[in-house]
């Protein structure tokens, strides 16, 4: 019953907040309108939404977001330095990261995080979802880079989104 009335409890507050940001006001009227939209949009589109996402460790997710934000800041300075330096001295490589994670959300988050952090852009997910091809802007040690991606980003994502038995 509850499930039918409020089909997507996470999406509703998110949509409400987006509406308030969009109208740029916190007036009661806008809040009500936002809540209504936040309820109506998931209610009528629930059939288009893919499987539910379960977050097993919310606190870990917060910690992980902070780590990633910090890495994004550092990444920008690193890439800025590489761009301003001598472009002939860069040694770009394609590296292949074997994936342990299986769920859609974890893989797409990992790919996005890789693209936003130091000198790497995820370029291709091999069809069977076991390997991710990543382009690194400047690296001498591909194995160390793969290992750091796996421990720094993939392991926390696995803990957060996939139940470790």
């Amino acid at each position, binding site marked *: 019953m509850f499930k039918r009335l409020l089909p997507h409890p996470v999406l509703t507050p998110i949509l409400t907040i987006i509406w308030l940001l969009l109208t740029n006001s916190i007036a009661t009227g806008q809040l009500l309108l936002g809540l209504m939209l936040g309820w109506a949009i998931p209610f009528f589109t629930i059939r288009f939404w893919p499987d539910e996402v379960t977050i097993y460790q919310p606190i870990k997710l917060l910690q992980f977001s902070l780590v990633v934000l910090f890495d994004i800041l550092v990444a920008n300075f690193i*890439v800025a330095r590489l*761009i301003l330096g001598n472009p002939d001295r860069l040694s*770009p490589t394609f590296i292949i990261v074997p994936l342990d994670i299986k769920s859609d959300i974890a893989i797409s988050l990992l790919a996005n995080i890789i*693209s936003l952090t130091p000198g790497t852009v995820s370029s*291709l997910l091999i069809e069977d979802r076991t390997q991710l091809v990543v*382009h690194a802007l400047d690296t001498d040690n591909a194995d160390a880079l793969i290992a750091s991606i796996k421990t720094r980003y993939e392991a926390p994502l696995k803990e957060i989104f996939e139940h470790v038995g």
Partner: protein
Amino acid sequence: MQEYILAFLIVTGASFTLVGSLGLARLRDFYMRLHGPTKATTLGVGCLLIASAIYFSSKPDSFSMHEVLITLFLFITAPVSAHLLAKAALHLKLRSIAKLPEQS
């Protein structure tokens, strides 16, 4: 004090935007060029948007947070478009300085 923070954010943001485009113009192959715009430009525009949010919120009885929307949107979409571009480039087998991975 606040105006110095604002000025700092504006200049930093613009510098990162410039660095991103410089990477686009300067680096030697497509896959390397991809790095500049995806990272530097996103952070650059992020800085500018935060500056704009602070500027419009600092005026008497007004607040402005809708800049956060564009920032979030850019941070979500930049890696997605980078990934798609790289995928398209690999599909077309563009010339690359790095050895192309074998297509399985």
